[in-house]
């Protein structure tokens, strides 16, 4: 793999730990996640370049990425919150350190809330129905974020202070801090239209978010694989799932084609749609289609309650990841192709 970067790889596996995986994530799992993230980002970049070219720009700006994400409001909102937090944090930190304050004044103080302004202006311009702008006022709790916070809280509660210090350090890792390595990893130099600085920030965020999504889903899949006593819907588990469950963990690879691509569902859709409608099923198709985020949340909420403590000590296996990606890419419902960045190759982006 010519794009392999040890720094990025290390960052990635530490991120997995901070997002809920075991203390030492498995090498194979990290390799797989890196592969998925890389492929998705490259695809995203290409589509963004396409959009840029259409509007005749010379660089990929953050607006192009926002445009690509316009279909999935929850994820877009999370991205916007992230950008605003970034602005806010710079504002505060500037006020504290007098040198920073001077630096800021000297460099022309249009920096405050710069990201927020451009984002707002852009969404204003593309918003036909007013939905996107309504997002800014929307104060709904982001359930996925809530889930992650709760998981982190549970994870850290049982740690001692040395472990907690390690955990905090790994939480502070981000692709943004390794900007040049990140750029090389994405092989930006070979592209005609290159991303701007803010666009790179967003890409770094999306990379992190993809890893987070994969870990979230993989943890859910892993939970599903444990049969729980008293689970009333175990009969509604889809056949493919049973196939994975029964085969030994190590041999899950045999029936699985390339990870990021969409596999046509080998089973008839009846059981899977049945389990989706049940709503309470702890297994079954995870968020795809128009209710992607919502059904994900609903099922996620029920599963921890139903099954109790997760298996913290086990690391996430590659087959969990594959199953997660398979389910995520599984199209359900008539509107699913229109609700995320499905494009020509039909790949489902995890982060947008």
């Amino acid at each position, binding site marked *: 793999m010519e794009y392999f970067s040890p720094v990025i790889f290390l960052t990635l596996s530490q991120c997995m730990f901070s997002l809920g995986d075991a203390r030492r994530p498995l090498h194979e799992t990290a390799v797989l996640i890196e592969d998925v993230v890389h492929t998705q980002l490259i695809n995203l970049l290409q589509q963004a370049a396409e959009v840029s070219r259409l509007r005749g720009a010379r660089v990929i700006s953050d607006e192009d990425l926002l445009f690509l994400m316009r279909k999935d409001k929850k994820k877009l909102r999370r991205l916007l919150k992230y950008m605003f937090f970034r602005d*806010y944090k710079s504002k505060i930190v500037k006020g504290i350190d007098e040198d920073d304050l001077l630096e800021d*004044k000297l460099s022309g103080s249009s920096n405050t809330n710069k990201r927020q302004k451009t984002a707002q202006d852009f969404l204003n311009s593309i918003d036909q129905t007013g939905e996107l702008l309504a997002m800014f006022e929307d104060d709904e709790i982001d359930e996925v974020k809530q889930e992650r916070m709760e998981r982190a809280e549970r994870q*850290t509660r049982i740690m001692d202070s040395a472990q907690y210090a390690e955990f905090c350090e790994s939480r502070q890792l981000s692709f943004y801090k390794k900007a040049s390595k990140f750029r090389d990893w994405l092989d930006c130099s070979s592209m005609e239209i290159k991303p701007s600085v803010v666009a790179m920030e967003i890409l770094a965020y999306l990379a992190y978010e993809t890893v987070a999504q994969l870990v979230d889903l993989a943890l859910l899949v892993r939970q599903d694989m444990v049969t729980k006593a008293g689970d009333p819907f175990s009969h509604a588990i889809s056949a493919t799932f049973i196939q994975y469950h029964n085969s030994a963990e190590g041999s899950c690879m045999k029936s699985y084609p390339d990870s990021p691509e969409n596999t046509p569902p080998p089973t008839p859709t009846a059981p899977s749609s049945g389990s989706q409608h049940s709503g309470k099923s702890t297994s079954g198709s995870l968020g795809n289609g128009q209710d992607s985020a919502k059904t994900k949340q609903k099922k996620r909420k029920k599963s921890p309650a139903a099954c109790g403590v997760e298996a913290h000590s086990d690391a996430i296996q590659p087959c969990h990841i594959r199953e997660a990606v398979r389910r995520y890419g599984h199209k359900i419902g008539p509107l699913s192709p229109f609700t995320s960045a499905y494009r020509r190759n039909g790949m489902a982006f995890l982060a947008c």
Partner: protein
Amino acid sequence: MVGPLPMEEETYLELYLDQRAAQDDLTQPRSPLPSSIVPFDVFMPNSSTPETAFSSLLEEVEEASGDFSSVDLSFLSDELTQENKDPAVARSKHEIEESCKTPSQPLPSEQDAGPDLNSRLSNSHSHLHPGDADSVQPSLEKSTFLPLASITPMTPMTSVSECSGTVPQLQNVVSTANLACKLDLKKIALQARNAEYNPKRFAAVIMRIREPRTTALIFSSGKIVCTGARSEEQSRLAARKFARVIQKLGFPARFLDFKIQNLVGSCDVRFPIRLEGLVLTHQQFCSYEPELFPGLIYRMVNPRVVLLIFVSGKVVLTGAKERSEIYEAFKNIYPILKNFEKA
């Protein structure tokens, strides 16, 4: 003057005998305690035994405390004025009981504390005996002093164990002033020392002075922004100095509308904090994105102060316009942080 109660005297004697050897340390800057006694020094000194015993007691507490050089003493002059005294006393009473755990002393002290403290100690100590109110000393000897009821109404403390041992110290003060005259920035930049001016980058002169160590942005409208001072008085002094520099260059500068715009304080609670727990329970106030910034940003509403809370236990407070807001904010956050102490 009523004589000492037998129980207390005995205790003092014991202490005195135990601590005899260490009395040389008394000359060091003492614990801040006595300053709170300042208003009460109306009584005559009593016999020497209780005094020295008490002093050595104090010294015992003293040894538990660390270096005082980091304690910011400069704010004291204004701070413990009439209206603040009683709550300060109350707070100090509780804080002393807690202070053995934390190195730094809870109470502010005078800078020239050294020699005066002993006399104050003895003064205050002696007036303990009659069982007067408003005394803090007895709480030092936790087990044996009679708890003296305080007459003055205290600010209700949630519980003794929730008082912190530290006080935030100011790190930076940002202020503005108006010189009320138009300025020729180019002339200032050419004639003044320590002045930078780069009109293409920014439309103000950046001037620095060494004492107090501050930086000012001077605009052609005559307004100035002064940053870098460590206290409000220093900031005012620095701003005046900048104004004087401008005056000496020939401009009819005055000194109007001095206003503190922002105070930044910092302190250390000295225990690690589990930020994940904090962000979950105080979601509406907290933002925590460790990959962007290692600290948790807590937006306190009352008072309106922004706190940056780090895993190590360091806390930075900013956004306050008055010193009391910083103290109040810290007082509010301490019990919350204590809740999430990472053992």
